[in-house]
């Protein structure tokens, strides 16, 4: 082992993240099958049922894509923030804050039946997400406080705030056994495109392209890359790394906040604990595994949305919905391990100079 050394490959294989993901997914299916076999269930039956009930009909496909929206938007936000080499672990909280901000705006304004009003509501949710990440962003940029921990902790603060509100000031008296806020008027529900597919998905597509543009084709994206590489280089180049980092974080937080707003207006139709079930965390890993690429995040998000829907329906045949989660987590894990083989090679520790 002593004569061998790990070295980073000189040429990146553009498709390596894709292959890694594929490998990870195959491994995950394998692991999932094993678990099913242990439980005396036929994997083929279970998987084909999942497939049928997640993408087999217009309705189920729409459900899957709807499910993907928050995962994709949060993931996009995370990928933007990662341009400056920072991590946003607070997407979960930002999603909730987006919903809270939207509801706040909704309650304190007169309801109108117009696209403009819905636009304003969603803008409020975007801003809510940015507000949620404001303190971590400020403290990181001004004092260098570790943003992994601060964004993480805000999740719990926001979640606690949500519980407080839906049990207190916003409590819906009509909802007795499940504390939640009052339903918003049907006038502001996001319109359906086809089947059950929400127009929120269109917004999702637009924002995917927006994130792609920002990261890949804009001057801002370039400046973020330099700032992310080295703050000293950024200073040397006349780029304010702090400014770029701050903006990136606010924008990224906003993306996640928007996810919460869309979830409220198209799925839950009210503030409740159901706004997000951990997508903020899964989004981090999805973003990382796709190499922080917006287009990849979109595709993986759709896949995971389908998996989640498939997972929830197979409960009817007695299979735990956790299978879907385990498949997701194993996919990501397998992809992580597979990436190793694509990025490094084991060379004999001799020639180099």
């Amino acid at each position, binding site marked *: 082992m002593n004569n061998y050394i790990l070295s980073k490959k000189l040429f990146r294989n553009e498709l390596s993240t894709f292959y890694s993901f594929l490998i990870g997914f195959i491994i995950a299916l394998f692991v999932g099958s094993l678990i099913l076999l242990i439980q005396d269930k036929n994997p083929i039956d279970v998987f084909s049922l999942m497939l049928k009930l997640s993408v087999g009909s217009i309705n189920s496909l729409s459900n899957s894509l709807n499910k993907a929206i928050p995962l994709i938007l949060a993931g996009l936000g995370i990928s933007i923030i990662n341009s400056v080499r920072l991590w946003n672990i607070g997407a979960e909280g930002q999603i909730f804050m987006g919903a809270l901000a939207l509801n706040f705006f909704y309650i304190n304004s007169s309801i109108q039946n117009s696209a403009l009003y819905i636009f304003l509501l969603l803008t409020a949710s975007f801003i809510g997400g940015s507000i949620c990440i404001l303190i971590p962003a400020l403290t990181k940029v001004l004092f260098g406080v570790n943003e992994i921990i601060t964004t993480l902790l805000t999740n*719990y603060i926001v979640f606690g705030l949500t519980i407080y509100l839906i049990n207190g000031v916003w409590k819906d008296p009509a909802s007795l056994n499940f504390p939640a806020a009052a339903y918003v008027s049907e006038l502001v529900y996001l319109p359906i495109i086809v089947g059950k597919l929400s127009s929120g998905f269109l917004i999702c597509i637009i924002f995917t392209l927006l994130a792609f543009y920002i990261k890949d084709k804009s001057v801002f994206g370039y400046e973020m890359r330099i700032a992310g590489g080295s703050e000293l280089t950024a200073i040397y180049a006349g780029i304010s790394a702090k400014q770029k980092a701050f903006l990136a974080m606010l924008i990224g937080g906003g993306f996640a906040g928007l996810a919460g707003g869309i979830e409220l207006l198209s799925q839950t139709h009210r503030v409740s604990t159901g706004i997000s079930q951990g997508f903020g965390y899964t989004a981090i890993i999805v973003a990382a595994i796709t190499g922080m690429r917006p287009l990849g995040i979109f595709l993986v998000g759709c896949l995971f949305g389908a998996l989640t829907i498939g997972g929830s329906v197979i409960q009817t045949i007695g299979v735990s919905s956790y299978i879907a989660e385990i498949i997701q987590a194993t996919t990501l894990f397998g992809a992580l391990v597979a990436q190793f083989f694509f990025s490094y090679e084991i060379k004999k520790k001799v020639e180099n100079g």
Partner: protein
Amino acid sequence: MVDIQFIGLLNATLQAATLLFIAALGELITEKSGILNLGVEGMISIGAVSGFIAAINTGSLFFAIIIGVLSASVFASIHAFVTVVLKQDQTVSGLILTILGLSLSSLIGKKYVGKKLDVKLESVVNIAEPDSILDIFLSQNIIFYLGILLMVATAYVLKRTMFGRRLEAIGEDLKSSDSMGLKIAKTQFIATCVGGAFAGLSGVYLTLSYVPYWTDGMTAGRGWIALALVIFGGWKPYRTAFGALLFGFLEALGPRLQTYGFEMSPYIVKITPYIITILVLILLTIFKNGDTGAPRNIGIPFFRENR
């Protein structure tokens, strides 16, 4: 004669603190060697569920503790393998393991939800009606004392033994450590597994004593608080213990506030530990000028230079 309420509060504080502290201490060790393990939450969960299952099925608490500690440690070894051997990103690996750990334990524990233990971790000294501070300290169970022992042992090993100093050296400066001939991979791997073992012990404490039964999501983010605690404590065992006491106090205080005449919503109280952690973290970072005590090499994988 001390106020009964206070006795109850102190007892709850110590128990909550023990839970947090042991996991935090394990993460401290892992981070001191340069590895960041964000999977603590998942590892506590694995330890909790496996310890519980072992206790239900064998009736032996001793065995249950061993199983819980070992399974979490094995789970942590996955993180160790991915980050130390494969040198992949530590943040991503840790997060995946949290999700995996939580969903795996939910899956395994499904059949055991609602089951009651016949045995419970008893106090070491049996005091029927504790009514003094000393009584409370004596009536904790074995894991509490184990926690104290581990705290002292960890502090001693890190500062006064060769192994501990070398571990810290590796977390500080990989290149220099390598040129000194220190065994980097082995040390980091061990430190990660030990951290997982501690998390497992914390999980066992959760299901065998603190609660004591198994439900979904019962770790309730304590793994994340443990991570924050390590920073709060400046990577020093004794200061971390102090932080754990503080947080334990806040957790215990929450439901008791009304008896003390405070009209604060329990929901708000529940989030005060998180707010305080952020504040402390910010203050520490500002006033210590970035020298928070963090191992300088944390999160950075080691590559022997291919010269």
